[in-house]
């Protein structure tokens, strides 16, 4: 049992938990504790130190564009993204609710609205009061400063003008051709200019104290503002839910449509005259059609981050499979035939370093040429373009590794195959590929990692729904949450990249006969 678990952990690339299992089984506890400390304790400590440094440094680095978010702020942003997702799901669900379930939800929403409305209006009043208070405080601070500044500015300008006039007067009496006097005058002018410069600077410095007064922060007001905005946002969401539970609800719309249909049908039954009857018949059919349409319709849900993640993962796998489907056969051919290798080498060398940003527009045009009507297309062209870009950028490691793996099959194995007089295909599938598999999978693992990195850029550029689009949209929002949302993306991308890598490690190990140890 113990060895089975240990073996499973080993194959899954989770050797770090090895000592935990051994400890539970009571095998040499001191040794296991030491290992746990080393393989689990130290990484956790490193991570905590990292968080600590981050928490310490973040508030100390502010630019005008924004502050570096602390871990707490990032957590809030992640919560915000999640709340948005949950709320959109709730709306979609509300749209489809019917019967008692709908009424129950409706009652819940109404109760919550009744509860929130007074809270929101109280917060609003409070906010208004605080805003007036803070404004008058700023005015009080700024008023005298501004007066002082105005006086100072007037004085400075008057001084400058006076000096200038004095200089002009002096210049008037300068003897022509007297180099010495003129030099002295030059020095005076330069002195005047320096003085003007310092005065201007002093004025500027004074002004910045005024600006500082405007930049005063009022923490209480800010917290009330956040609270008020949270109430109002929820109210907005609830009013939308209310709509989807009443007029906007599918079942409500259908029953309204049906009652109209009954009227139209009875009108059709009693219609007289050819023209009127035809018209009534048409109306009945149209109403039936519209009911059928409503019955099929669904809430048009915006893309939320969790759904975008799923789509990104799907996209990277599609691209990865396209890439592998090209890279593995080509790699095998390159490994088998020196001629083929020589023929492909320049192409590989040429295309390998090309950036995804260059591939994308080219792919976009080519894909667009094949898909003329995106409405009816099997896949969305933007999705396909991103996937193909991923494929083009990620196939190289697999190709090179496959070629290498195939070329370096042990001579003994080949000789055995010769002795057994195996045909080409049996030689390929029984000897060459199995022994090349570990290297091929090592290549695939790198490819998937590259693909995942490339995908974000590709999605961002061709606005295919996915993590890349999320990044660009949130950046475009330019809200106070933007930076924190970017940090959330960093973690999500990192964790998914890690998982993808682990999956590939498991695959790689399962095809290696020797159980060759893989790097972390």
């Amino acid at each position, binding site marked *: 049992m113990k060895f089975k678990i240990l073996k499973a952990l080993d194959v899954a690339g989770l050797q770090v938990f090895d000592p935990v299992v051994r400890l539970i089984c009571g095998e040499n506890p001191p040794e296991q504790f030491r290992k746990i400390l080393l393989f689990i304790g130290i990484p956790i400590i490193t991570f905590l130190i990292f968080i600590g440094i981050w928490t310490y440094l973040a508030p100390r680095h502010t*630019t*005008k*564009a*924004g502050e570096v978010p602390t871990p707490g702020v990032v957590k809030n942003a992640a919560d915000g993204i999640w709340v*948005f997702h949950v709320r959109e799901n709730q709306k979609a669900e509300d749209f489809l609710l019917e019967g008692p379930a709908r009424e129950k939800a409706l009652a819940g929403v109404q109760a919550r609205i009744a509860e929130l409305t007074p809270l929101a209006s109280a917060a609003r009043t409070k906010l208004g009061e605080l805003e007036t208070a803070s404004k008058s405080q700023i005015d009080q601070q*700024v008023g005298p400063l*501004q007066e002082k500044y*105005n006086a100072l*500015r007037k004085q400075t*300008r008057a001084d400058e003008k006076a000096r200038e006039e004095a200089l002009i007067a002096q210049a008037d009496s300068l003897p022509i051709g007297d180099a010495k006097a003129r030099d002295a005058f030059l020095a005076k002018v330069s002195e005047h200019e320096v003085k003007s410069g310092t005065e*201007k600077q002093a004025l*500027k410095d004074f*002004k910045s104290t005024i*600006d500082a007064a*405007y*930049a005063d922060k009022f923490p209480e007001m800010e917290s009330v*503002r956040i609270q008020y*905005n949270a109430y*109002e*946002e929820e109210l*907005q969401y609830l009013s*939308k839910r209310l*709509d989807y539970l009443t*007029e*906007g609800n599918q079942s409500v719309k259908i029953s309204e449509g049906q009652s109209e249909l009954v009227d139209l049908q009875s009108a059709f039954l009693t219609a007289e005259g050819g023209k009127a009857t035809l018209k009534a018949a048409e109306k009945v059919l*149209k109403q039936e059609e*519209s009911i059928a*349409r409503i019955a099929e*319709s669904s809430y*048009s849900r*915006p*893309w939320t981050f969790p759904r975008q993640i799923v789509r990104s993962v799907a996209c990277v796998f599609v691209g990865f499979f396209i890439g592998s489907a090209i890279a593995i056969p080509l790699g095998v051919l390159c490994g088998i035939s020196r001629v083929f290798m020589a023929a492909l080498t320049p192409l590989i060398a040429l295309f390998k370093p090309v950036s995804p940003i260059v591939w994308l527009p080219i792919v976009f045009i080519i894909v*667009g040429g094949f898909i*003329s*009507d*995106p*409405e009816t297309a099997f896949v969305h*062209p*933007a999705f396909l373009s991103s996937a193909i870009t991923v494929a083009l950028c990620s196939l190289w490691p697999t190709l090179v590794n496959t070629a290498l793996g195939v070329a370096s099959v042990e001579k003994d194995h080949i000789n055995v195959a010769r002795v057994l007089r195996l045909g080409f295909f049996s030689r390929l599938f029984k000897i060459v590929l199995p022994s090349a598999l570990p290297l091929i999978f090592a290549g695939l693992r790198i490819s998937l990692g590259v693909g995942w990195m490339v995908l974000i850029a590709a999605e*961002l*550029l*061709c*606005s295919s729904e996915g993590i890349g*689009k999320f990044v*660009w*949209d*949130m*950046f*475009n*929002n*330019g*809200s*106070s*949450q933007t930076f924190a949302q970017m940090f959330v993306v960093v973690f999500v991308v990192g964790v998914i990249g890690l998982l993808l890598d682990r999956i590939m490690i498991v695959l790689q190990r399962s095809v290696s006969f020797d159980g060759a140890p893989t790097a972390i």
Partner: protein
Amino acid sequence: MKRIIVNTAAALALSLSPAYADLDLEKDELKFGFIKLTDCAPLVIAKEKGFFEDEGIQAEVIAQPNWKTLLDNVINGNLDGAHMLSGQPIAATIGIGTQANVITAFTMDLNGNGITVSNSIWEEMQYNDPALDTPTPKHPISADSLKPIVKEKLDAGEKLQMGMVFPVSTHNYELRYWLAASGINPGMYTESDTGGRTDAEVELSVTPPPMMPTVLEAGNIQGYCVGEPWNQQAVVKGIGVPVTTNYDIWKNNPEKVFGVTQEWSDANPNTHVAVVKALIRAGKWLDEKDASGNFVNREEAVRILSQPNYVGADYDVIKSSMTGSFTFQKSDVRSMPEFNVFFDDYATFPWYSDGIWFLTQMRRWGQINEAKSPTWYLETVMKVYKPDIYLHAAKLLLEEGLIEKSEVPWDSDGFKPATDEFIDGVVYDAHDPIGYLNSHKIGNKDPAGLTAN
């Protein structure tokens, strides 16, 4: 010329057959694109307040990464229609950039842009013109006090750098207009210079709106012209100072339009009318006022727009320009009820005269690189602006009692009266595009009396 239009307008009004009364949609699941700017509001509101649903349309409203991609997506059919810069359908139709027949039957809003300069430029401007050095300087602020700075830079062998959002955007033309009104040459486009920097005293470059504050802070540009919320963002973050809005440059100028391709409109005529109906209602909802003239729905609109899948900026930032005021400096919050106009003053009607203004600017700065005749201006704009579709939609709304008769210019010939409400006071009469071109000091001038081409 005028008579021709009057006749066509009358003919169009008559051709509104009752068959349209009950719109038979060709397509009911539509995708619309928008750029994250507050003036996408009519599209978002029409969806969120259920105006599209009332027309039987299931609409998806999708953010686009930039104006170029947005236009490409409309042309290749990924999107059914989109929130576009006023210049985009015109430029696409005459083949500046991507060539395609893009038309518009609905103007989304008036005004809504601002010109922001960096703090240090603002300080120098204040130094050059002491009248600006007060907490609430007098408006409009022209580029006169900027001129010495430009000269100084030129003497030092540098050029002031400013940002705008797209070569055929309203921002480009407004910024050029503002600079040229004070005698600063913003540069000309020529056949070989598609960057528009020939003879420039101030160099303009394209920067995506969300990047503007960042690039300004980094010092790559010293000022920019952009829509909201990116001017207010600069104030909130203390990066720059908005000096003027396009309301002062040209009072009630058309800003964004709702654009679709000609092919789409031909294939889905009823759907197009239904969409315009929903958008008109959204515009009206946005501009609804109470008895004392305060907007009643704007706060709700701002709440909706601040959702992350729409504009997504902070509620308070969007609110500062959309609820009837504009923050120039922290000390200078002004009431500007007309900063964004979504419906009043016949705002949503697709005026031929608005389109012609953009054509004159494209010619003035050399994007159209040969002289054109007045008839060409008119014919081109009639290819792009489709008041007949607007009037269809309006008529149906009137029948349903959703708008007032006085809210639509029913008998207009498509031309607004000549106006001199520009920052430099030059009179613009859309009937005489050549005369208008020639009345400016800086920019291309064309011989009058051209009849060919």
